[in-house]
């Protein structure tokens, strides 16, 4: 794989300041700060249940923060409603941990759906080309007419990514793109993520437990621990830190 390109851009696309979020007594996020630059991939690492999914759901406005500021592409997400929020959401791709394919539709309809519903001016032929293009990108061109239930977990995940790519988002949020996949398929997805970054110049947040994924896809990694980011920086720098919790995360990943 090509070496990760250096990000010298200083344009901030996502900026999170002092974010708090709790569910009842459960205080999930406690003072999260993070900035993502244009064209940059950032991997968010952290144990299960630390609130990684909650964090990106707040970024797309699926959940509302208790306090703190979340600005995406210059707009404060919590202040947006209706049309404005929709316009912003079209610029963000969200690939779900569970793939979340529409199981009443076949693969073609799944991929068409966001386009048909949002870009009314597109013709049949254009939609068809767009579908073929993203299917090609995730390497599943032969599955066009199958139902999601006929696919394996990894294939569903790739279709989920394709469905978000079809709207050509400026920001991609991947929720555990490689979890539960074999190393080879994982590597293919990693390559896909890197390719998306190169090709469309997207900025991404990649949530993962998988250090290989973080290492090969991300320009920086961010360790989420006890509700805030313990350390953010290039992979090598973060894992050369002597903090026990970071070291144990690293060792656990590679000694298993």
């Amino acid at each position: 794989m090509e070496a990760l390109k250096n990000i010298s851009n200083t344009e901030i696309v996502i900026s999170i300041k002092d974010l708090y979020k709790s569910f009842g007594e459960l205080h999930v996020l406690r003072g999260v700060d993070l900035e993502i630059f244009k064209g940059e991939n950032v991997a968010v690492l952290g144990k299960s249940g630390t609130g990684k999914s909650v964090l990106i759901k707040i970024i797309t406005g699926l959940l509302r923060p208790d306090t703190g500021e979340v600005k995406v592409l210059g707009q404060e997400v919590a202040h947006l409603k209706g049309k404005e929020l929709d316009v912003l959401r079209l610029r963000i791709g969200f690939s779900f941990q569970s793939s979340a394919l529409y199981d009443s539709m076949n693969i073609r309809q799944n991929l068409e759906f966001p386009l048909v519903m949002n870009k009314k001016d597109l013709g049949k032929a254009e939609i068809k080309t767009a579908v073929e293009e993203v299917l090609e990108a995730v390497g599943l061109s032969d599955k066009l007419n199958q139902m999601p239930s006929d696919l394996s977990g990894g294939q569903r995940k790739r279709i989920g990514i394709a469905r978000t790519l079809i709207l050509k988002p400026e920001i991609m949020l991947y929720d555990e793109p490689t979890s539960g996949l074999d190393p080879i398929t994982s590597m293919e997805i990693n390559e896909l993520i890197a390719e998306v970054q190169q090709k469309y110049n997207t900025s991404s947040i990649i949530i993962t437990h998988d250090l290989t994924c973080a290492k090969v896809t991300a320009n920086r990694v961010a360790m989420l621990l006890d509700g805030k980011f313990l350390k953010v920086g290039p992979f090598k720098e973060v894992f050369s830190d002597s903090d026990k919790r970071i070291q144990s995360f690293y060792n656990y990943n590679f000694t298993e």
Partner: protein
Amino acid sequence: MDFFILNTFNKLRLADSIQRKKYVISKGIDPFFSNVFRAYKFVVLYFKEVFKAPFHFREVINQCFEVGLRSLSLITLTGFVTGIVFTKQSRPSLEVFGASSWLPSLISIALVRALGSLVTALICAGKVGSSIGAELGSMRVTEQIDAMEVSAINPFKYLVVTRVTATTLTVPILSLYCGFVGLLGSYLNVHTHEDTSFVAFFENGFETITFLDVFTSVFKSIVFGFTIGIIGCYKGFNATQGTRGVGRAANEAVVLSMFFVFVEEIVIVQVSNWIRNY
């Protein structure tokens, strides 16, 4: 204002989960009121959204077919059997008075005023209400509804408004159909006993039916259809806790919509009787 009330309830519940003390009324009753309030908001949102573009006509039509296809065979069977059995059981009582020639009008009144719409509503509550609850419930717990939302598609509009509109439009049609099939069943029974002709049977039957009867019946079915759709959607849309939640959503949708159908039946019949006697 609405938001304020809901927020107050939520805050108090939150405060309560920390201190285990403060409730507006009591631990059992508070969630009931906040649920009623949420259901009320859900209904209001439907009326807000239903007249706003985009309309998703194609999906409404799809859902109408779904509703029809899911319940048609059962409605045909039940309506037909109801017609036969009801006729059969009513004959002896009428014969005592030598009035078996009144059978067609008796049956028509029963079917048009009450049985057609009630039987249809109960069948649809069972078949359609549960499947809407289960379908939306599983879409909720597998994050398909969230997936729509993040791709800027309004899931309430695409899923809820279309389904509720479809049941509201389709249940009245199914009710009329049910009444008609019931009359056919009744005719079969009458014909074998009294050798009445088809035309005579229907002429006789329709003579006693007034415009108000038909109007009330159709109005009732519209209300039933709306009830079944909105309850199924509400339960499904708000499903939680994984697959168990899906089963529960389907189940509660059936029970609750049947309950409401009965309540509405009684209220509407009362009101129409007042109008009749006015």
